[in-house]
């Protein structure tokens, strides 16, 4: 079963919720945590762990066999990113930076003049992490600095995570609601949207709940940093979107402290009210998974 943690706005506490749920739920389930925030993966930082088992994420990069090319221009016509430039003499040239690796040119070429090379746009990792008395597998996707196209890295990391047998695959996504987030959460039984009680959090919560609705995924809402602002509009929005507010994590220095130390708060300060709220949330997720 896949359960996703997302939220729209950046910095609302998606990763905090994901690592604390992982720490608690791994006591009962074989658990894989998939960090699919490939532009800025930091679950390993929050868990005080090292990334291991690096594998490149390669996408197709076309090369042209000019001995075969008949200058028909078909490759240039089907390229939707402008990566296949047709020169005035009719020969195609590839601009690697613009290529998304979709292979359209390869299939469009009538004479097999497009040859498959590759470009490394990111990496995936797989780390085994001990968390108190249990352990989890963390799979991380990371985009190379300078590369721009995230979906192939998200999908590669997701595939790697799903290839590890587990009772629960917990997915942590990036901020936003783009197709990278949609690809990350696709097929989830449940989407936990983490927000904060500000108009900014509210605005982006609306977008992620809309995405969950489109994908037909049940959504739960966690209000993080509860107490820093009014929540009336959040309550109204969540009701309108047919979702439910299931937990409120109070703002506290202890959360910040555990964040800085790289230890989930449920292990760092198990007796705190924040840890108690995470245990309550984990219990609800446990019932869904069981």
């Amino acid at each position, binding site marked *: 079963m896949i359960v996703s943690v997302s939220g729209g706005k950046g910095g609302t506490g998606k990763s905090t919720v994901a690592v604390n749920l992982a720490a608690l739920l791994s006591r009962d389930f074989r658990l894989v945590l998939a960090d699919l925030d490939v532009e800025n993966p930091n679950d390993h930082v929050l868990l005080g762990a090292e990334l291991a088992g690096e594998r490149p994420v390669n996408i197709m990069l076309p090369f042209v066999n000019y001995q075969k090319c008949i200058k028909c221009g078909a490759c240039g016509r089907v390229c939707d990113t402008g990566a296949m430039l047709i020169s005035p003499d009719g020969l195609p040239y590839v601009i690697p930076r613009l290529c998304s*690796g979709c*292979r359209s040119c390869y299939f469009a070429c009538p004479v097999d003049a497009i040859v498959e090379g590759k470009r490394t746009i990111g990496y995936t990792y797989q780390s085994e992490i001990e968390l108190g008395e249990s352990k989890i597998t963390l799979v991380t996707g990371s985009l190379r600095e300078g590369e721009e196209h995230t979906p192939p890295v998200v999908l590669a990391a997701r595939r790697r995570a799903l290839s590890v047998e587990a009772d629960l695959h917990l997915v942590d996504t990036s901020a936003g609601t783009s197709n990278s987030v949609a690809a990350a959460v696709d097929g989830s039984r449940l989407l936990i949207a983490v927000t904060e009680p500000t108009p900014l959090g509210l605005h982006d919560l609306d977008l992620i709940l809309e995405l969950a609705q489109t994908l037909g995924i049940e959504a739960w809402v966690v209000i993080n940093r509860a107490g820093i602002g009014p929540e009336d509009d959040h309550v109204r929005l969540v009701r309108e979107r047919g979702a439910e507010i299931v937990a409120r994590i109070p703002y506290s220095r202890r959360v910040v402290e555990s964040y800085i130390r790289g230890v989930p708060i449920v292990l760092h300060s198990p007796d705190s009210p924040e840890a108690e709220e995470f245990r309550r949330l984990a219990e609800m997720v446990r019932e869904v998974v069981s």
Partner: protein
Amino acid sequence: MIEIAIASGKGGVGKSTVSATIALAAARAGKSVVAVDADADAPNLHLIFGVREWEWERPYVESKVAEIVQSLCTRCGRCREVCPYEAIHVDEEGRFVVNQVVCEGCMTCSLVCPERGAIRLLSAESGRLRRTTTSYGFPLISARLNPGRPNSGKLVTEEKSMAKELASQDSLIVVDSAAGIGCQVVSSLAGANAAILVAEPTPASFAALRRVFKLTRHFMQPAGLVINKYDVNPEMTEEMEAFAREKNIDLLGRIPYDDAIPRSMAMMRPVVEAFPDSPASKALLRVAERVLEIVEDWQSWFTRFRPREPEPYRPIIIRPEGLQGV
């Protein structure tokens, strides 16, 4: 015209707060300024300025999505095999369907489909471009991406060219970029004269700072650093500042943790307007004043903080074996 991009790698560390303060301080000082919210995936700058209506708005159509015509589909499955985005599913009734919030519209599926016309291309509205004049007297350009559409660097580039049309020769353009290091951020940084990096002293934010800093070097940009909530972890603040000195990043200031910032957000007003005497407001205004000094005396700052050596982006390319002369 000077264009500065505010970036952080990590979300929620204070980019929009810093951007709003700089734009507002410039306007108060009588400087012509245009603000650009380049985070189309989660646009928030307008909420800080209390914008409720747009003076101008239009749809931005860039993306395409595939659709399978069920009456022509023979369910051979070729489309599903080649889709680079895993956007094609088989539903309960065995039909091949495109998940349109994942599809990027590359149309590779249509090229391998043996049935003529069984896969067609639909135009999808990517999002909206909009513009208004804030109640503080300067224009704000913003964009909003529809949920499930591909992130778009082109949308950011379009916003920036709109800003340039509104700007005059001595205007300041403030670009509030998205979280991350992907296409939106690359397009925000591309062409900017300087980058202002915002971080908080946490390991996650420090890791993101190093990543986004690398991008500023690809663009040969001088960079400044603002450390937000510096007092939650003074030791790491020191480490970050040491990193900045080592990399020749200008230290523009430290902002203390202050709940005046979330309280001002609830009021939909910039914190320096809502709580001008709060510690965070004072620190933010000092940063903004420093930025305005830099803009006024651009050449000397640029000379001091520009990167010495080019560090261009180098793609990792694996050539096909046995292909000669390409």
